[in-house]
């Protein structure tokens, strides 16, 4: 798993590549919480993500909740395949704002 952080409009975008699992989800957690703690809304780009386990999903839940408490947001972009199925299995696709592509996110 690798990730790249960049600025997109007024959001911080974290693009995940590969597989998020028990071993690397703490890194993702650290990065996501830091983005929100510093007062930014976050977009998590799933386009190149092939797998995410429950520790990764738990990290998204924690980040979403922190963002909400700070009147910020967490948006998922480009989820498909297995990662989308995990979001559906846990019903979080009905909680997190989900967008097909970055084009759908307006300033």
């Amino acid at each position, binding site marked *: 798993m690798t990730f790249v952080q960049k600025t997109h409009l007024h959001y911080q975008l974290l693009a995940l590549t590969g597989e998020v699992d028990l071993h690397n*989800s703490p890194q993702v957690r650290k990065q996501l919480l830091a983005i929100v703690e510093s007062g930014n809304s976050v977009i998590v780009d799933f386009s190149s993500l092939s*797998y995410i386990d*429950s520790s990764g*999903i*738990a*990290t998204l*839940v*924690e980040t979403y909740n922190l963002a909400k408490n700070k009147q910020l947001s967490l948006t998922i972009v480009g989820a498909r395949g*297995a990662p989308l199925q*995990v979001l559906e299995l846990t019903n979080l696709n009905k909680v997190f704002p989900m967008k097909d592509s970055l084009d759908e996110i307006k300033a």
Partner: protein
Amino acid sequence: MTSSNKSIIDVNNLVTHYGERKILKNLNFSVEKGEIRVIMGGSGSGKSTLLNHMLALLTPTSGSIVIDGVDVVNANRKTLLKLRQKMGVAFQGGALFSSMTVGENIKLPLQHHTELDEHTIDIMTRLKLELMNLAGFEDLMPSELSGGMLKRAGLARAVIMDPKLLFFDEPSAGLDPVTAVELDELILKLRDAMNMTIIVVTHELESAFKIADKITVLFDGEIVITGTVDEIKSSKDIRIQNMINRRARDEHLDAEQYIKRLTTGKN
């Protein structure tokens, strides 16, 4: 039997005994990644013994069991431990620790085997409780749950580490029909969303037909057939037909052996 790259379990020429009694008689089969394989058979057919061998809890007389590339019969403790972290097991009665709450039981593997933050562990535990329809029960003790709830809590613990391979012993035994159907649906969802390979040991025909990609039927320690649901249904084997039509088996009686068993206690 040749193993393919796609298989996650390869059982070759497996022979086991309890004392002098031969339990499994030269079993050969493979399970592919992402498959739901049901192992069926009546009481005493050897299915629980086979399960215990696949979990490397028993040592066979001869033959090999290779799981995810690991020869479990000859593997050392460290290799087995690593393999077991990729495997989840849901035992018949749930097998929860009675002195811990449901939540503590479910998160136990994460606390032992990972260095995840406690917040992450708590959310993961609640996600699994939600999935098993047990939201809000995390602070109860196992003794306060019904049989069906215990079974679901046991399943929650079995999948807490998102295992690649899930073994499930008698999922629907003792459950009411509605709960049993819900559990079957959950097994299908877990496979699809988590890419799990799932081995279900059961004697419940209805459940097997609903969830199985393939069914392996054991009878007196031998594999009668491994096939798809349709292949099982159209099998001409009288033992399979009896199983499907729920007929008592009419065993051939070997008079000489029968008298020997009665007089000497030996087969």
